[in-house]
């Protein structure tokens, strides 16, 4: 039996397959070129109208506006979350009139624009001034910031109630039955078995809702709250410098992207046990 004594010399690698210059590559390069040109144009524009005085004058107000936006959204998300609990259970209950009220509430707040609701509260509640004064609430409702908080809380409660309801109803029936078979009381079954599974389903919609609220909160600038957008508008009306809007855009983008990545990380972390 013979076997080979010498190794074959290594062959050169085969020639690389010629990549065809396809239409999609042409379009892709062209679009990237457009983005590049746009960013260079914006950069030149900013450099051209750059001035340190403006930066020192309006920079701090942008930061304070950012703070206003974040506090407004943070508080309204938390309060809305609390308010969404009775709403979600109202939607799921078998008692007809309660579920109808909850449905009407959710339908109203999800079916009309946030800005219309804000106007309704901020300008519209002024019509009820005598009653509000009698109730001692007028000092709250004449403040634009409070009106915005109030509106956002009611609005996000409607959205969060739907998220919560969808998540709870997405837990399969067998889980309820399993808990009942183990003899667990209803409340323990809900908090220890149903809710943890529902929360994983609800995680992503909650993240989207927070992002939507951050973006939606820009409209408070119209009712004279100086959040990030309000400060931007004020700075723009004083300087007529378009780059103010660009700075605001950058800040909003950074905020939203950070939140999105944070949420992706949280989700990855919390769903480790579901990965195979």
């Amino acid at each position, binding site marked *: 039996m013979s076997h080979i004594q010498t190794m074959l010399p290594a062959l050169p690698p085969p020639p690389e397959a010629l990549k065809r210059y396809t239409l999609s*590559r042409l379009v*892709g390069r062209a679009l990237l070129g457009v983005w590049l040109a746009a960013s260079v144009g914006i950069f030149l524009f900013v450099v051209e109208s750059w001035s340190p005085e403006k930066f020192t004058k309006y920079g701090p107000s942008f930061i304070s506006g950012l703070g206003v936006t974040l506090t407004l959204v943070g508080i309204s998300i938390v309060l809305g979350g609390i308010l969404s609990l009775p709403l979600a259970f109202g939607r799921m209950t078998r008692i007809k009139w309660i579920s109808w009220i909850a449905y009407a509430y959710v339908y109203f707040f999800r079916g*009309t624009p946030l*800005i219309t609701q804000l106007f309704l509260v901020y300008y519209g509640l002024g019509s009820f001034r005598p009653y509000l004064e009698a109730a001692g609430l007028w000092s709250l409702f004449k403040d634009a910031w409070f009106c915005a908080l109030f509106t956002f809380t009611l609005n996000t409660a409607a959205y969060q109630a739907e998220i919560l309801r969808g998540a709870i109803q997405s837990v399969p029936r067998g889980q309820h039955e399993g808990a009942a078979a183990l003899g667990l009381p209803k409340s323990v079954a809900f908090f220890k078995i149903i809710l943890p599974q529902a929360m994983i389903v609800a995680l992503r919609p909650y993240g989207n809702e927070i992002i939507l609220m951050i973006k939606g909160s*820009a409209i408070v600038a119209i009712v004279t709250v100086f959040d990030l957008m309000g400060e931007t508008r004020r700075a723009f009306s004083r300087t007529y410098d*378009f780059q103010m*809007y660009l700075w605001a855009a950058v800040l909003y983008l950074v905020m*939203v992207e950070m939140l999105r990545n944070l949420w992706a990380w949280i989700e990855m972390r919390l769903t480790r046990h579901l990965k195979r």
Partner: protein
Amino acid sequence: MQAAFAALSSIVSWFAGIVDPMCGPIGIFRIFAQDTLLSCGDTGWGDEIAYGFMITASLAICTLPIGLFLGFFIALAKQSQEKSLRLATNIYTTIFRGLPELLTLFIVYYGLQIVVQRVMATLGYEGPVEINAFIAGMVALGVVFSAYCSEVLLSAFKAIPHGQYEAGDALGLHRGKTMRLIILPQLVRIALPGLGNLWMALLKDTALVSVIGLPDILRQTGVAARVTKNAFEFFSIACLLFLILAMVSSLVFSALERWTKRAEAVR
């Protein structure tokens, strides 16, 4: 020719006047709000609000095809093999999904003005340039809509099995024909609920254009509220009109969904 156009437009406006749901001969305001603040004509605000309603509806309807068209091609580009194409479209969606709609609107409205002014200046025209608020609203909302739409369509594309494309190849169909005859009908069916949600969001976002001065529902009711001092009533009417728009479109969408599912087997 011109006379024909004039006649045509007058016929259209006459017809629109007849079927006008608010201030037409059988309009709501005409019948139920005869001598109130909402009556039609010079004494009431009915016709102004009806005009705002029309502006809002037509802005949303004009934006939809632009957004769908752009969104479709962006979704196609996002699943392309070509890295640069994917990168360019991902930048687009990241930007326009991350920015508040109001800010996008301002950037388009003021930014377009600056860009057009500069372009005109290089061409030798040194006058003030003003962008039409309707066009600016259409561009801004269309861009935002297309960014969201591309995500919906992309996930719908991913839900279509690869065998469908292969079947198209096996039948000897051209690439475009495969898309049109095999992929698109399924795509519409899968994407319709998502697109319905986007349409609702678009309807609500149209309220923002009142800020740049377009006389839509919110602006008209706002003016009425300021003049008559009946803010609560008028903004409630604005909410009600948006609710009506939402209800009508949910009816249309459920009808559309039924229509696209007509070929599916009954279960």
